[in-house]
């Protein structure tokens, strides 16, 4: 629906996509900035650079176009649809009263709407295009005159590009945008250019990641690997090598994506929901690499594929943002978060394997019991050690930066609940209260506590000190996943219970 506002797809936006912009405390390629702006405005990751250009070229057309996303709470209270035009927002009485502070309450959805309106105005007026390097960077359109030659050149190149875009001159546009890119880089070559000329490696890497999206390839590989391993398990032994190479190809893309992101962000990629899902997926694959067992590799591929699918969907904010001061310790960040997320990975894999065992229990009871008693049990043990160590490391970090080892913060508490749940299961199994089937069912269900600790604290409870991770997104999907898992376990339980001999 939105696309008729844009010109043909044959236009080349590559140069514009690469132009460095400063936003939210970081210099990034324009395409990344454009995706972030459009995600803020529309809550979707579809449109990029051209949309922002179009805001500036045709601000009046956009005023009446319904494209700004309205949160569910605001939809109800302002009596608006899911998408709304800037003008309709401006004319909304309730929102106007809220903006003037007459309604004496805080409505997060309203704040978000006002922020979106502000962002749209900033972009359409040009005040939000921080493209002139400096300390801090300046906007393309700004009150006051140019302070130096570089900013004059940048502004002229930009206006040329904008004119070419408005007048639909493709060739001129390509030339002008290349000129813009060059003049921005020339303004601050120390930071923006690489040693051998051209754009700095970090910017190019970020651009490449944004366009190429390695995780997309990784999840496709994982899906294929799961199918191949499934076929191998079904008896097609000849596919073994194929399965293995696809499996490792997936791991390669996955690892490459994480390493490149770490290079772009200059810190371990484990600071928000998006990054942690990817790391948990990778942790699952790490376990699978060392557990040379086809079923483990098959299940791990499925789980990792699901993780990356969730990350690749537009549910979570995938931006690289500056961290809260207290988190800026690469050492603790790496040690604490990686340990905790590795334990999530272990529990996820144990859950997946337990599900698989429950699935073929009836036909292959001996194999199923062996799987649960050895592999699943061992992985759970590793998970328990990791979650205990990770929680303690978190306590030590908290002690060194906040002055208390333990403060009943919800994230801490849920990590402890996870540990207690699995510890209870292990103890119960140790006394012999749990037959293999019960153990498998318990391990499947205990993963709900991991989901709560990992996702629920930030997205459902939304309280506490770990609030740097708070955001919206994916509630429906995660809840659905949990319900499906519970239903599946119940179904297997009933199916097995009919036979009686296993319970």
């Amino acid at each position: 629906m939105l696309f008729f506002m844009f010109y043909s797809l044959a236009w080349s936006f590559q140069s514009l996509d690469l132009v460095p912009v400063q936003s939210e405390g970081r210099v990034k390629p324009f395409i990344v900035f454009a995706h972030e702006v459009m995600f803020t405005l529309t809550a979707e990751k579809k449109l990029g650079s051209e949309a922002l250009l179009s805001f500036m070229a045709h601000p009046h057309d956009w005023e009446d176009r319904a494209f700004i996303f309205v949160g569910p709470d605001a939809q109800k209270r302002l009596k608006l649809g899911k998408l709304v035009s800037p003008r309709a927002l401006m004319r909304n009485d309730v929102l106007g009263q809220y903006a003037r502070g007459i309604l004496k309450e805080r409505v997060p959805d309203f704040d978000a709407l006002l922020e979106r309106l502000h962002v749209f105005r900033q972009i359409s007026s040009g005040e939000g295009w921080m493209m002139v390097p400096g300390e801090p960077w300046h906007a393309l359109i700004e009150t006051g005159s140019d302070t130096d030659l570089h900013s004059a050149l940048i502004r002229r190149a930009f206006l040329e590009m904008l004119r070419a875009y408005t007048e639909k001159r493709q060739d001129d546009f390509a030339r002008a945008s290349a000129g813009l890119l060059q003049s921005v880089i020339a303004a601050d070559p120390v930071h923006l250019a690489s040693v051998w000329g051209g754009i700095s490696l970090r910017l190019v890497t970020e651009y490449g990641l944004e366009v190429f999206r390695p995780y997309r390839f990784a999840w496709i590989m994982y899906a294929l690997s799961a199918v191949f391993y499934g076929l191998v398990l079904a008896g097609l032994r000849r596919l073994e090598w194929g399965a293995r190479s696809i499996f490792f190809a997936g791991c390669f893309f996955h690892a490459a994506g994480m390493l490149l992101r770490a290079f772009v962000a200059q810190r371990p990629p484990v600071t928000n929901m998006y990054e942690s899902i990817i790391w948990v997926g990778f942790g699952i694959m790490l376990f699978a690499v060392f557990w040379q067992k086809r079923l483990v590799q098959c299940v791990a591929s499925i789980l990792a594929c699901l993780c990356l699918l969730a990350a690749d969907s537009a549910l979570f904010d995938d931006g690289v943002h500056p961290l809260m001061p207290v988190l800026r310790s690469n050492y603790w960040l790496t040690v604490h978060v990686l340990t905790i997320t590795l334990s999530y990975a272990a529990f996820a894999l144990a859950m997946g394997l337990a599900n698989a065992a429950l699935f073929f229990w009836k036909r292959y009871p001996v194999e199923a019991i062996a799987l649960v008693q050895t592999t699943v049990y061992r992985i759970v043990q590793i998970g328990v050690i990791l979650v205990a160590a990770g929680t303690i490391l978190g306590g030590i970090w908290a002690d060194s930066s906040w002055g208390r080892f333990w403060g009943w913060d919800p994230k801490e508490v849920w990590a402890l609940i996870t540990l207690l749940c699995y510890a209870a299961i292990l103890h119960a199994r140790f006394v012999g209260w749990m037959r293999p089937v019960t153990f498998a069912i318990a391990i499947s269900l205990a993963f709900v506590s991991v989901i709560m600790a990992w996702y629920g604290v930030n997205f459902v409870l939304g309280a506490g000190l770990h609030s740097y991770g708070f955001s919206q997104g994916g509630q429906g999907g995660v809840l659905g996943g949990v319900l499906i898992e519970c239903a599946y376990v119940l179904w297997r339980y009933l199916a097995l219970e009919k036979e009686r001999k296993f319970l």
Partner: protein
Amino acid sequence: MLAFLASLKLAVSTILFIAIGLAVGTTLESGYDAKTAAYYVYRAWWFYTVLAVLGINIIAVAVSKLPWRKKHIPFLLAHVGIIMVLFGAWLTQRCGIDGTLRIALHERGHTVRGDKASIIVQNEARDVSWQPTEAVAIHFPGGRIDRYLPYAEAKVQFVADASKKAAIHLEVVGGFAMRAAQDVWLWEGGWRSMQLGPALFAIKKPAKKGPGLFFERHGESFSYTSINSDGKKSQGVVSGVGFLDIPWRGGVTVRVLDLLWSAHPETLYELSPDRTQTPAIHIAGGPWLGLGESYQRGDGALVAYVPQVAQLPFDVQLERFDLLFDPGTKKAAAYTSWVHIGNETKAIGMNEPLTYKGYTFYQTSYEQDEQGEVVATVLSVNRDPGRPLTYMGSFLIVIGSVLLALRQKRKRS
């Protein structure tokens, strides 16, 4: 008895019980706030009891395995670790100091404010302190708290009495009052004038220069004189509640909301949506008290509601405060306090605490004035005698569980 106390059945049920209790705690925190969760779960007697049961259970299991042999080492390490962590937590809770120290730039400070609050009654030997929670009915000598607001906003209300002192309540909208409506209370008993932007509101003879709005009492009526910024005057009589006819610029309207002929002010507190506000309590049969306020009771005793404080045995002076931003934003990226402590200047930064004479100082936050200049630093101060036990116990838990996992592997193979 020992068999029951040492049973794994007890262990598993205690563990599950703690897990469920904690889950309830986090739900409470999400629905209300951290203080409520602490009151009902984390610092509740029943929770301490369950933890004690867990401790007793572990000790009983250990005792039941006497005499210990080499194969018991992994079990003992892990579970002694748990006991040590629990005991360390008890020590921290019991003997630790945890509070905040605010020091203005270039000033000295040594008063640490805890997160507890106290009621101090004059001539009573014992202060009453409590963890701040929402749902308390705290009794103190000669009184009781019947309401508690965790985040309070003060609001003035006039109550009729026999003082014969009149009060006028105005609402000013528009112009210099800008956005929301502004409340103005004028009272003969003391609050005779109030400045709002450039304009003066007062119960007195009209000034020579404006802008301003002046009221004069004539028995049972008020006359008013308004002067705008050009010095133009207009006059009228306040006949009761309603709009006053004032030819001011900027569409300013003034409305009389209340007119009381004999009244005095009382401070009320309301729950504030702003969660950085300080709390307030209401004394049964008495007034509201904000944190730091006091009042004289009928029997003459002074009752004060104050934060619980501890004094450091030394002074800390803030010499300098460094603040760095993320490039191009007003988001703080890092901040450091340079303090003079024990004849030396030392830095306290994020992830860079300072320990001095057993007290550890952590950089928590800072205060700015309207121009954005930093005026004070806020440090957390902490003294934790349970720390060595907690660390040692944590270490043992991890080592013990690794050994447990390894031993089982060996047994199977």
